[in-house]
């Protein structure tokens, strides 16, 4: 990367110092004078009507300052519980999952708040819980919400014969002639695959602090959120206040992975802060996180695929069913459209997807939502087809890979993409690796696709009187975005990193930022930052040109100076320019502005190769090596990109081999890290990364999306490896030692 001097360099995170010294502030670290503590009273039932809530004894307890229920929430007025997108769902007339919040107590200490929660008496009428998605979809299963109609959550259905349903959303997309396609095939494979709900496993439990102003008309909130502006909007709606009456202050986030766009605590804190006129703090215990902080959905996925003997896929018919849990709002079907089979060229295809309600913990988005689940099915199926053909798995994929100009199943025409290149890079790499040998060893290959998203972002850049540059954004840093944008600013101004600072402002002072989701942050925020830099540079050039006696067009930036190209004697420090512009004859402060929306995403792919060894007597899996190749377009910070890839793979390993919820009648049984197993350092090998750089045509410097693609292919890669090691084909997860041993014994028979 000799092209750039700061972009492309392995730069340590600018926030790393505060983190290694313990001075970084997270939501749970905030303490304000006179702070109250709030605790949630939760439903013990997975499905029940609420007859009566008696808060009198709790209110009467010494030290209790307020108790709220759904009736107290301004944002609920005239609104169905189906429309409380990403807000806390204090139960109104029924509860739809165990642990659903029913009331909240604010008291002068945590102990008193907890005691008061125990004094809240709720009269329930228990209802039979709906526990299985396939059961739930049946027309004779009573709907959990009597006024929920498929695809018509926010408005009544147009069809007068429509009946309420537990299918919240149904998406259908496709093209071509399926019958003809399957006829053309030499063989047809049909399989159903299941995945389990899993939690993001962020180490930091939810916490929030809120403080109202003196007349309760405005509130300031500190909480973990992937988007301060979207959070502001949600809280304002919840409170019935204008958006600008809520100020979200950024804090460090201890892991998010998509699971911190919804706000289980902050709106409640804000309401209590207004009610009591005292600051209010809430936190979730790890048990509450596992019972109420929404996981990724389980899924049931059926794929029928027709293939010719030459290895061409002629037709695909697929159905993806996602278990939404107790609330309908975080649809996964909307992600299926753009992310399923999109890396392949399939002339005849039909995809159906469903979000189905059950009486279990509601779901939210987890790293590449819907896609690790769909790809467990897709990439296992691809492996089975390759085996049927006797073809190398990468070769089979290359034969069917989509390229620029092809039409994706969603109807989108593909821009420049690097699918082929990434597969080829992995194939080349594997040639240099010893092939895996041994009766109980196997190698698994899989690819993972992520379409990406873009969002809208603002940025402004101050050129300071000391010649340093400050970038102000409103972006939550979940993946190292502060450091990467600092690198862009340093690159554009010809400054060292030490002369660039990044400030993440609060919603009162920062420009708008979309949530940091969809791997959209660095990809599209970088445009806004780049534009802000160019804007500031134009101003500096206009100030420098007359002083240097040259034309604006020959001015460049290097070493903290504006310099005439080819004439290094003619230079002036940025500091001098910035200062002089403040004087009476100046133009005012040098402030650069950048703004972006509507950027088309740059779809990416990651290809995985994992070698495993299975103890055939116990079923225990040892991962011998793991390599993931990803088309990242261009790595602004390879250190950071590698870290994202490695973290994603580790999450996939946990998902594939050891994580999962144990439900009993809809109630979560494994509510601590003792029995919800996250991989430890001893469970994960070194994870090798290959950065493929097929520049996008839409991203600054050719960027693509980084954080999500690398998790997508992990589940199938491990399933394929275990198949090669043991002959056991897993169609459900997790692949625990017990499940593997059972499979081995069945294969023996």
């Amino acid at each position, binding site marked *: 990367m000799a092209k750039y001097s700061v972009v492309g360099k392995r730069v340590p995170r600018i926030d790393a110092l505060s983190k290694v010294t313990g001075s970084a502030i997270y939501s749970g670290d905030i*303490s304000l004078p006179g*702070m*109250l*503590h709030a605790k949630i009273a939760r439903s013990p039932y997975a499905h029940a009507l609420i007859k009566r809530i008696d808060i009198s004894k709790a209110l009467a307890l010494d030290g209790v300052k307020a108790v709220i229920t759904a009736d107290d929430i301004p944002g609920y007025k005239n609104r169905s519980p189906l429309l409380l997108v990403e807000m806390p769902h204090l139960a109104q007339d029924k509860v739809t999952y165990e642990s659903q919040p029913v009331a909240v107590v604010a008291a*002068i*200490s*945590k*102990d008193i708040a*907890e005691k008061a929660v125990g004094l809240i008496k709720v009269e329930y009428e228990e209802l039979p819980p709906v526990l299985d998605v396939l059961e739930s979809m049946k027309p004779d299963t009573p709907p959990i919400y009597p006024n929920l109609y498929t695809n018509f959550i926010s408005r009544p259905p147009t069809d007068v014969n429509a009946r309420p349903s537990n299918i919240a959303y149904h998406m259908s997309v496709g093209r071509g002639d399926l019958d003809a396609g399957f006829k053309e095939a030499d063989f047809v494979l049909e399989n159903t695959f299941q995945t389990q709900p899993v939690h993001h496993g962020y180490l930091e439990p939810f916490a929030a602090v809120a403080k109202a102003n003196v007349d309760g008309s405005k509130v300031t909130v500190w909480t973990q959120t992937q988007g301060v502006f979207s959070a502001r909007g949600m809280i304002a709606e919840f409170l019935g206040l204008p958006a600008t009456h809520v100020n979200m202050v950024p804090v460090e986030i201890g892991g998010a992975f998509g699971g911190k766009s919804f706000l289980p605590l902050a709106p409640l804190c804000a309401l209590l802060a207004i009610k009591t006129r005292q600051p209010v*703090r809430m936190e979730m215990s790890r048990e509450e996180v596992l019972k109420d902080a929404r996981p990724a959905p389980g899924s049931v996925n059926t794929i029928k695929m027709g293939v010719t003997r030459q290895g061409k896929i002629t037709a695909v018919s697929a159905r993806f069913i996602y278990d939404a849990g107790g609330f309908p709002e975080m649809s996964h079907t909307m992600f299926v459209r753009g992310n399923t089979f999109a890396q392949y060229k399939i002339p005849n295809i039909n995809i159906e997807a469903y979000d189905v309600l059950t009486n279990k913990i509601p779901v939210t988005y987890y790293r590449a939502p819907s896609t690790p689940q769909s790809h467990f099915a897709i990439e296992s199926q691809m492996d089975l087809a390759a085996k049927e053909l006797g073809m190398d798995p990468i070769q089979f994929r290359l034969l069917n890979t989509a390229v620029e100009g092809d039409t994706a199943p969603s109807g989108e025409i593909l821009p420049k993409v690097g699918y082929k290149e990434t597969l080829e890079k992995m194939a080349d790499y594997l040639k240099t690796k010893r092939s895996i040998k041994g009766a109980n060893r196997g190698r698994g290959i899989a690819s993972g696709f992520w379409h990406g998203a873009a969002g809208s972002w603002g940025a402004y850049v101050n050129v300071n009187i000391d010649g340093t540059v400050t970038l102000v954004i409103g972006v939550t840093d979940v993946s190292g975005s502060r450091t990467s944008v600092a690198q862009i600013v340093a690159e554009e101004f010809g400054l060292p990193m030490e002369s660039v600072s990044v400030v993440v402002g609060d919603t009162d002072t920062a420009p708008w930022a979309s949530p940091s989701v969809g791997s959209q942050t660095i990809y599209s925020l970088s445009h806004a930052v780049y534009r802000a830099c160019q804007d500031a540079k134009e101003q500096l050039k206009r100030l420098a040109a007359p002083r240097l006696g040259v034309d604006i067009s020959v001015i460049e930036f290097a070493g903290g100076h504006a310099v005439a190209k080819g004439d290094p004697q003619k230079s002036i420090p940025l500091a001098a320019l910035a200062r002089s512009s403040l004087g009476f004859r100046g133009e005012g402060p040098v402030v650069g502005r950048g703004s972006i929306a509507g950027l088309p995403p740059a779809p990416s792919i990651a290809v995985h190769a994992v070698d495993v060894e299975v103890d055939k*007597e*116990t079923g*225990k899996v040892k991962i011998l090596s793991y390599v993931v190749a990803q088309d990242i377009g261009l790595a602004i910070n390879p250190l950071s990109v590698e870290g994202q890839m490695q973290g994603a793979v580790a999450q996939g390993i946990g998902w594939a081999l*050891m994580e999962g919820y*144990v439900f009993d009648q809809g109630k979560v*049984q*494994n509510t601590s890290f*003792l*029995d919800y*197993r996250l*991989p*430890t350092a*001893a*469970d994960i090998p070194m994870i090798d990364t290959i950065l493929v750089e097929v520049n996008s045509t839409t991203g600054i410097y050719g960027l693509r999306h980084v954080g999500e693609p690398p998790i997508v292919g992990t589940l199938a890669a491990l399933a394929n490896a275990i198949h090669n090691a043991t002959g056991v084909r897993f169609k459900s997860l997790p692949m*625990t*030692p*017990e499940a593997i*041993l*059972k499979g081995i014994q069945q294969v023996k028979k």
Partner: protein
Amino acid sequence: MTSVSSIGQFSYCKPGSLQETLKIMAEKGAGARILAGGTDLILQIKQKQKSPSLVVDVKGIGELNRLEYTEALGLCIGAAVPLSKILSFPIVSEKYSMLYQACSVIGSMQIRNRGSLGGNICNAAPSADSAPALLCLGAKVIIASGKKTRIVNLDDFFVGPGITRLEHDELLIEIEIPNPPKQSAGCYLRHTTREEMDISVAGVAAYIELFPELKVPKEVRIAMSAVASTPLRAHSAEALLVDRPITEKTIEQAAQTTVDETKPISDVRASAEYRREIVKVLTKRALRKDCEMLGIDIQG
């Protein structure tokens, strides 16, 4: 300060002597709980499984913190000695390698720096990792009350999940592990879903002591954890192996018999069936490992 939560309602004391401790226990009975490392007790108090009114910190009691080895008495481990201290006592890895193996898999480095062997035994979880090795090594426990001191074979110590032979006014003082004979070997193997930091699905310790001049077992002890309501010995399986040369066939038989002596349950961690499978595999592996250490050539 209001952010600090109480994990329970108890007072705390740290007696300076054994006598004082026993007096307190006689007075308080079941209302008092002994605190050594706290990695079980503090967790149980937080989860409301135990609600003592008094927590008695015994880390200052000399008798509970002894760690000594003599040829005559063998290894004497005070009840409150943390696992990490036991692991760094050279004689443990030299002469009691199966105990070393067992202690090194309990929890994590952080847990082992606090948790004690005495605590692991008194907590009496069916899955207690230290128990199988201690049972194989013929450990005894020294128990004291204000009225008397007694010695109990560890074989007789466990009664049920979380229940031991300790009376309310009794305190575990020390674990005594006799000197293993020269021609003996033992190992502890366990199975967990994760590599580390996990509660065992099943654990098996196997110990073989040979006759002085023969490669024939004089004494065999096989003990298991997590497959019954307490850690336990597989006496019938042991009997199959003594007084005759070890063969693959007898190992196979002993492993199967060991399984027959288990009473595993199905829970969130594993099914009973899987636990039985694992016990069979681990018993074979442990016995084979012992043979390897003793230089025994296992006949077909």
